[in-house]
């Protein structure tokens, strides 16, 4: 549902914007389309890799396996497993929150749930190829590395507070 909305909004936006742009200035619009085409071609190999990685991850790490892994986990090891699996997996947040809630229900600590949600959203292992292509290797690794540390610290703080 979330995806459908995104698809509609972004395509309507793009079509009306390019229409308006052509109305204003034909040459500039053609240049914009060229930039768009080059950008897409540039991204294509990274997208291929992502498609394969996501397929493998979803095929092999099913949500049931995650609940089993994290089910009654707490403490440092639990947080470690939770943050690593959160960083690797790509699950829509609408699925992630119920999953995190069920983890807590089945005995995982709040820190584990927080670590899982935070790394899941902040870090994209699978989308690394696109990120590197667009903003460069150094910024990508810095962002993901620091995010990981932050996610773990948020998890620890939350374990103490909630």
């Amino acid at each position, binding site marked *: 549902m979330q995806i459908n909305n995104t698809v509609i909004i972004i395509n309507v936006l793009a079509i009306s914007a390019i229409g308006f742009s052509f109305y204003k200035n034909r040459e500039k619009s053609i240049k914009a389309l060229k930039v768009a085409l080059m*950008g897409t071609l540039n991204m294509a190999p990274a997208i291929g890799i992502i498609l394969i990685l996501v397929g493998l991850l979803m095929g092999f790490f099913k949500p049931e396996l995650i609940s089993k892994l994290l089910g009654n986990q707490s403490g440092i090891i639990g947080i470690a497993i939770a943050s690593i699996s959160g960083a690797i997996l790509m699950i829509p947040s609408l699925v992630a929150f119920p999953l995190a809630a069920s983890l807590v229900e089945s005995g995982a600590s709040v820190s584990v749930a927080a670590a899982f949600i935070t790394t899941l959203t902040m870090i994209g292992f699978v989308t690394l190829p696109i990120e590197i292509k667009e903003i460069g290797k150094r910024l990508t690794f810095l962002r993901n590395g620091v995010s990981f540390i*932050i996610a773990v610290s948020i998890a620890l703080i939350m374990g103490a507070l909630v």
Partner: protein
Amino acid sequence: MKKEKNSGNKQAGIDLKGNSKTGMQKQKKKKGSIIIFIGIIAAAVILLALYPENRVASFQASYDLFIEFILILPAVMVLMGLFSVWVRKETVVKYLGHASGIKGLIIALIMGMMPTGPLYIAFPMASMLLKKGARVANIIIFLSAWACIKLPQELVEIRFMGIKFMIIRLGFTIIMVIMMGLFIEKIEKLSKHHITEN
């Protein structure tokens, strides 16, 4: 005319870094990515051959994402193309550049928090803004806010995890994201100095 010249200069500035490793090294880099690509495909083939029961789920997931990409990415790239042609560099510098200060940080945060699509469409935007002169801290804040501070998502979080969990996590995330942006910018600057000195 003036704008053209500006972007030309910027291009040269970026190239200074890349120029030292054109030719051989670029080719080497390309070879490296091809090896990674083949490695991933080989790993996929082997894994799926060994565990046939996971094939359906794997193909389904790849296929779903492929469709999502096809529906979203062309539109994103067209918007980026329009942005590159119509938005002037000075505008980006004014709102997100170094002189933008706290206002810039807040703008980046709010831009990221808008209820929009998946993270991968934010990367081309980030790259475009960087090229047009946004400061690194703002771009990191924008990306991180996009990744993990989403208004609709917070509502789902309240429902499943409770309001206390949500508020504490949100509060810490916002603080940490801003600190991370400034921190990464510092490191980025230091390493750039290092490179130019050598």
